[in-house]
């Protein structure tokens, strides 16, 4: 019937035509540019403006950085080499790097000690920060503060050992009595710790530090970025438990505890940090006899810890308030007591909600440690503003020094913020 067969048709295509490449405007870099940078007139204008700004910034900074002088011994020599060209005088960093990092009085043959303490800090912090690691590593975390104290301040090993034994005794007493009565356990633990410290203090021979294996370094000789890191790490790690306790205390049903916490938090939040630092450095000297003052570093740590604990308490209170009431009631209906309910049900959820706020306080606190330069402690900023800019060689170098300080702080703060984002992802259980 039909004569049309496949064989009779002149040409039938048997293979697929290879796909033609997309139009040049719809592929690769061009497409990305079109979609992201030049999608409409307004965006195009903004892109061009942004490019112009970036160009102007680079045009001014790149020659300054690339022409930088690294090897002179004073600003005047830098200027001689540059002969009026734009260029940074980075030699101040190469000559004074040790002062910027460790302060100008820390003995230079002992720089390995804070360095080692910093490396060990990474190991000590790891099990706390990354809870997939084996829990046994926490033993090292518990020893670390005493080890770091011994490394940085030097002196006799007896002091940190006695301090550690005091805490160990307190823990042992608490464990023993906590089953029968919380009050006995709590106060017994405090008494045990003090007993060990006082007895141990008597046992340490006078002058034991003088010929100790690690030469003692007084607190006044600490400085530079090391001081910022030490203050930041110590105060953050102390203020977090204190802040949790204050937040829980503020929610307590016991009026005495509740009002003590409320007054503490509101007082500290109502006072500027710099006022507290002045009290620590200046006023306390009036109250103590001149020969037996509390170490300046300790005074500053106490003040900054108090300050940030009050802020962290408020952040955590926000987390507690965000939990539905049903969670508290569920814990009660399971027959959990207060401590168990908080530890197993309430705090894990409340703390997870509070992470961004806590990290915010921690970053702010770390940067606030530069305020100690006003009470004549030579932290990184204090070193720059005081001794280095006041030396005849380097008076007048600002951008290089403060840029270096900004870089150091940025690295640490960005690290903290990245960690907190990882933590939030890791703890996300709500399958959004």
């Amino acid at each position, binding site marked *: 019937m039909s004569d049309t067969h496949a064989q009779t048709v002149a040409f039938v295509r048997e293979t697929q035509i290879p796909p033609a490449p997309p139009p040049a405007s719809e592929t690769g870099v061009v497409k990305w540019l079109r979609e992201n940078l030049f999608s409409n007139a307004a965006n195009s204008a903004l892109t061009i403006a942004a490019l112009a700004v970036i160009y102007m910034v680079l045009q001014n900074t790149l020659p300054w950085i690339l022409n930088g002088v690294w090897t002179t011994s004073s600003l005047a020599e830098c200027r001689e080499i540059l002969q009026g060209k734009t260029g940074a005088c980075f030699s101040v960093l190469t000559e004074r790097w040790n002062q910027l990092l460790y302060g100008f009085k820390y003995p230079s043959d002992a720089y390995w000690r804070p360095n080692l303490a910093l490396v060990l800090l990474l190991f000590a912090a790891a099990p706390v920060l990354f809870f997939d690691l084996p829990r046994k590593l926490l033993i090292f975390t518990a020893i670390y503060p005493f080890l770091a104290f011994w490394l940085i301040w030097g002196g006799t090993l007896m002091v940190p050992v006695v301090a550690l034994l005091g805490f160990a005794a307190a823990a042992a007493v608490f464990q023993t009595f906590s089953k029968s009565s919380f009050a006995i356990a709590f106060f017994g633990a405090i008494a045990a710790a003090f007993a060990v410290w006082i007895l141990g203090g008597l046992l340490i021979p006078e002058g034991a530090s003088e010929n100790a294996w690690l030469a003692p370094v007084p607190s006044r000789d600490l400085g530079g970025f090391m001081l910022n890191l030490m203050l930041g790490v110590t105060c953050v790690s102390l203020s977090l438990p204190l802040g949790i306790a204050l937040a829980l205390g503020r929610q307590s049903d016991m009026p005495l505890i509740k009002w003590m916490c409320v007054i503490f938090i509101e007082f500290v939040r109502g006072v500027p940090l710099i006022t507290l630092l002045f009290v620590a450095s*200046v006023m306390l000297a*009036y109250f103590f006899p001149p020969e037996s003052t509390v*170490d300046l570093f300790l005074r500053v740590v106490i003040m900054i810890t108090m300050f940030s604990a009050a802020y962290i308490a408020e952040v955590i209170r926000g987390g507690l308030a965000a939990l539905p009431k049903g969670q508290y009631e569920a814990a009660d209906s399971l027959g959990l007591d207060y401590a168990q309910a908080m530890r197993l049900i309430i705090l894990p959820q409340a703390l997870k909600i509070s992470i961004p706020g806590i990290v915010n306080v921690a970053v702010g606190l770390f940067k606030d440690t530069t305020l100690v330069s006003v009470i*004549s402690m030579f932290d990184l900023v*204090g070193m720059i503003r*005081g001794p280095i800019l006041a*030396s*005849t060689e380097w008076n*007048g170098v*600002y951008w290089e020094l403060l840029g270096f300080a900004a870089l150091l702080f940025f690295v640490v703060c960005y690290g903290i913020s990245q960690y907190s984002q990882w933590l939030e992802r890791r703890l996300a259980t709500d399958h959004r």
Partner: protein
Amino acid sequence: MKKTVFLGALTVAGLAAGAAAAGTLDDVKARGKLNCGVTTGLVGFAAPNANGEWEGFDVAVCRAVAAAVLGDSTAVEFVPTTGKTRFTALASGEIDLLARNTTWTFSRDVDLKFEFVGVNYYDGQGFMVPKELGVSSAKELDGATVCIQTGTTTELNLADFFRSNNISYEPVPIETNAEAQQQYLAGSCDVYTTDASGLAATRATFDDPSGHVILPEIISKEPLGPLVRHGDHEWGDVVRWSLMALIAAEELGITSANISEMAAGTDNPEINRLLGSEGTLGEMLGLEADWAQKAVAAGGNYGEIFAKNIGEDTPVGLARGLNAQWTEGGLLYAPPFR
């Protein structure tokens, strides 16, 4: 180091502050170290060098006192103080002596209960302007914008000066000297005013120091000197006469180069009394007979200290001016050693 962080916190509470206040001189001798308050850093006056050793004009006073009292110019614990912490540090006994370019004023001497023992630098407030402005006197500054550090006496002096000359100005308040340098160089103000020594030090750091002039008018008196606590006169005498020994040594021609040969005895009885080969001046102060010899040997006489730290051959480049000996038209006048 037995007083550690932990144990120290416990022991302090128990110790009463009421221990009988021994004289500062005895305290310093017993301690074997002088606690000397200095600034946290001021070009030429006090700053640690690359090795962490303190250097400068005020530092030299501390070293001379330490040498006179303890015989060792390195036996000094330098306690850095800011403008805000300096007076409490001295009043609370944290430091024995404050040598921190502090202006001697009535209220500090009388009301704050301190004792200024002398003047080691006569300063005064001056003005710096760019040369291209073509100004040769501060009285031509009508309508100028002036960079001024807030909260200092310079601010009040400035207002007084412009009001009494009946000319107007616009203040640009700034916080620190470093900020002032940047603002002035960026042209936010026509004039920068602070102490003349500070102006000279600031100008020395500029790319082109010759493009800026310091105007001849000095509009205030700023006698800077070391001070001690009120009431301990033995200690005040030691510090006062250590400073005077440096000044007198220059007047008498005693330098760090010739001091050992002069100490053996000279024809000039005043030199002999000062250096201890005659008389009992050291004993009267409660010090060794060669106290002044050690003080001068520590860093040279006043003129040598000046030339080494802030003199015309240094980057700060200050002329002696008012700080010359009275025999050369200056104000330095050490009372007789007799």
